[in-house]
Structure formats: structure tokens, C-alpha cells
């Protein structure tokens, strides 16, 4: 019953988001997954001793803007609105992905229900699994390069809004599967389920369950947690992790706002 209610709630939110996205003129046909012919994904390093060190991504350089523009052109995106897209690393930096153009694709924040925020969640999940030794870093890299939507299903759970994994071309280096294993090796924690660390996965719409209302988000300023009260950014923050206490958030590396 609760899950049905959640699905209905998400459907309403998705519909609202879709209509506002349409009204704003965003490209809702933006690619949800990379074209493997243009960008199959590329690894910088698979060494967890390098990647799993706190602050690692800050040691990796930024993609020049001219190269980002090349990626937009390659994907046929000739115009865009502010905040509509990011040039995303197919294998994220936190998973050891490179800055080669082979590892870049334009990803929309505005498509619904699948978008860059949703991919961020699976990137973070895979990073946690790889850096805790539950899967290898190479496995994490391979799975997200194959198809991040199937990786989401495998390592987190159903995609938000009842979305199905997106099929990509047969030329994908590691063919994706839409089959959900009965018992994933890494035992994903369903949204709202508490763990001993006080951390849970967010709801599909980026909100947090009542039992763990503190939102964790990873942005250009690193991992930050947002409290439900006294934080003006709380409502608009799309949670990538949820915590039962600020202490739990800090223990997971999410600092408070300044």
C-alpha cells in the first residue's frame, strides 16, 4: 500500500515536472544514455588505492569548455538553456573515469523521470560499493559504462517513476541486460530502509524518508548535507543519500552547509 502510494505520489510529481519542463522549452528528447559509437566510456585508473582516497576527484583536472562544446555538437545539441545539461562523465570521476572525450556525453537535468540526478545516485552507490570492497572498481566501471540504467536497477532498485532500463545499441562494449538478478551480490538497500550507519537511499523523487530526513548531495563543492529545518536549500536539494542524523552524514563524508 505504501509503495503504491509512493508510486502515485511520484507519478504526480513526475507529471508536474514534465509539464513544467515542457513549458520551459527543455529538450525532453535529450539522450538518456550515451551513444556507444560516440563515447563508449573510458577509464583513467582502476586502482582503488588511488580512487578511494578522500578528495581524489579534486586531483583530476576539469574538461576544457571547448571540448564540452564539441561533445554537445557531436550529439546534435545545437542550443540549450542554462542549467539544462551537464557534460557528464560516463564512468564518473569518482569511479576512476577519465576526461577523454570518449568518456563524455551531454546529460539533461530536465528529462523525467531519468536524468543526471538519477545517474548521480547510481554513481555514488557504485563508489560506495567499490570502495568498501563489495565489488571491484573495474566491475563498477564496467557496469556503469555498459548502461547506467540497468546498473541502477541492479544496485539500487527500481528506476524512479516506474521507468524501464533504456536499451542502448548493440555496439556497447559490455552488452546491457534488463534482467534483474534475484539476489544482487551487493544487496542494495531499498529507499527508506535504515542501515547501521544511519544512511539510506533516497526516494525516487530525490526526497528523503521521514526516518532519515537529512539530505546528502554531491556537487561541485563536494559532499554536503542539508537539514530539513533552517536550511533554505533543503526543499530544492535532490538527495543522493539520506541520513538519520547530522552525525551519520558527517561520518559518511557529507559536511554541513557554511
Amino acid at each position, binding site marked *: 500500500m505504501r509503495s503504491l502510494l509512493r508510486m502515485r505520489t511520484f507519478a504526480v510529481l513526475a507529471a508536474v515536472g514534465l509539464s513544467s519542463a515542457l513549458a520551459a522549452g527543455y529538450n525532453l528528447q535529450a539522450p538518456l544514455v550515451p551513444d556507444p559509437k560516440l563515447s563508449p566510456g573510458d577509464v583513467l*585508473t582502476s586502482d582503488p588505492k588511488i580512487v578511494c582516497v578522500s578528495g581524489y576527484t579534486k*586531483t583530476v*583536472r576539469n574538461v*576544457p569548455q571547448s*571540448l564540452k562544446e564539441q561533445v554537445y555538437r557531436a550529439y546534435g545539441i545545437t542550443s540549450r538553456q542554462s542549467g539544462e545539461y551537464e557534460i557528464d562523465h560516463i564512468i564518473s570521476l569518482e569511479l576512476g573515469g577519465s576526461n577523454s*572525450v570518449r568518456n563524455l556525453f551531454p546529460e539533461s537535468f530536465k528529462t523525467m523521470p531519468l536524468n543526471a540526478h538519477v545517474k548521480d545516485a547510481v554513481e555514488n552507490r557504485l563508489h560506495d560499493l567499490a570502495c568498501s570492497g563489495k565489488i571491484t572498481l573495474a566491475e563498477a566501471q564496467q557496469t556503469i559504462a555498459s548502461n547506467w540504467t540497468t546498473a541502477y536497477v541492479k544496485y539500487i532498485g527500481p528506476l524512479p517513476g516506474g521507468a524501464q532500463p533504456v536499451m542502448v545499441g548493440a555496439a556497447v562494449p559490455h552488452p546491457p541486460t534488463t534482467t534483474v538478478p534475484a539476489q544482487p551480490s551487493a544487496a542494495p538497500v531499498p529507499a527508506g530502509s535504515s542501515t547501521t550507519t544511519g544512511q539510506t537511499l533516497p526516494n525516487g523523487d530525490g526526497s528523503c524518508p521521514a526516518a532519515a530526513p537529512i539530505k546528502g548531495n554531491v556537487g561541485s563543492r563536494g559532499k554536503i548535507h542539508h537539514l530539513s529545518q533552517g536550511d533554505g536549500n533543503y526543499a530544492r536539494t535532490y538527495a543522493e543519500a539520506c541520513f538519520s542524523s547530522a552525525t551519520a552524514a558527517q561520518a559518511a563524508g557529507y559536511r554541513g552547509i557554511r
Partner: protein
Amino acid sequence: MTSGPTLVLTVIGTDRAPTSSDARLLTRAQAVIEADPHFKALSGASLQRGEVNAGVTETESGYLYLRYDVPGAVPQEFWAHWGKKDHVGWSSGQVSVKTEQNTR
């Protein structure tokens, strides 16, 4: 701290082969990078990758992607292009190589 002799320069975004200008840019960029004090502080760095991004002009940043492997450390990525002077922006990884015309 120099490139291996078998590095293959690839071109991304078009079917064309690397030009002689691309090859010269790679060689010159290596020299500029490897003369940088930050680079000299790296131990055992070796050039592993050279990619021409054909969607960018050769005088724009991002044209030639270079990657050095550094044993036990974060690999170093650079983007080289023909510019007005030899310069390495160590934090950005952008490398300007003085155009051959300007070297005369």
C-alpha cells in the same frame, strides 16, 4: 619521463588520420610538459595516450589530449593546442605550444 616509442596518435570525431602538424604538436607538447617543474617532480611518468579531438580546431584548448601514467599515483591528463607561447597551466592541464610560425 618520456614517451614510449610506440605511442599511436588517434583522431576522434572523424575518419582522418593524424596530420604531420598533429604529430609535431604531440612532440612539442611533450617537451613543454616534461620541462615543467611539477612534472619533473613526478616519479616514472610515461606518456600512454595521445588523442586528437577533431571537433576542436588546433588552436583551441582541448585539441590534443595527452595522458601520462604515473606509477601508484593519479594519471596526469593534459590538453595541448597551438598557441602564442609555450605554457603549461598545471592546475587546468591546458598546454599552449608556440606555433611553428612564431618560432622563426
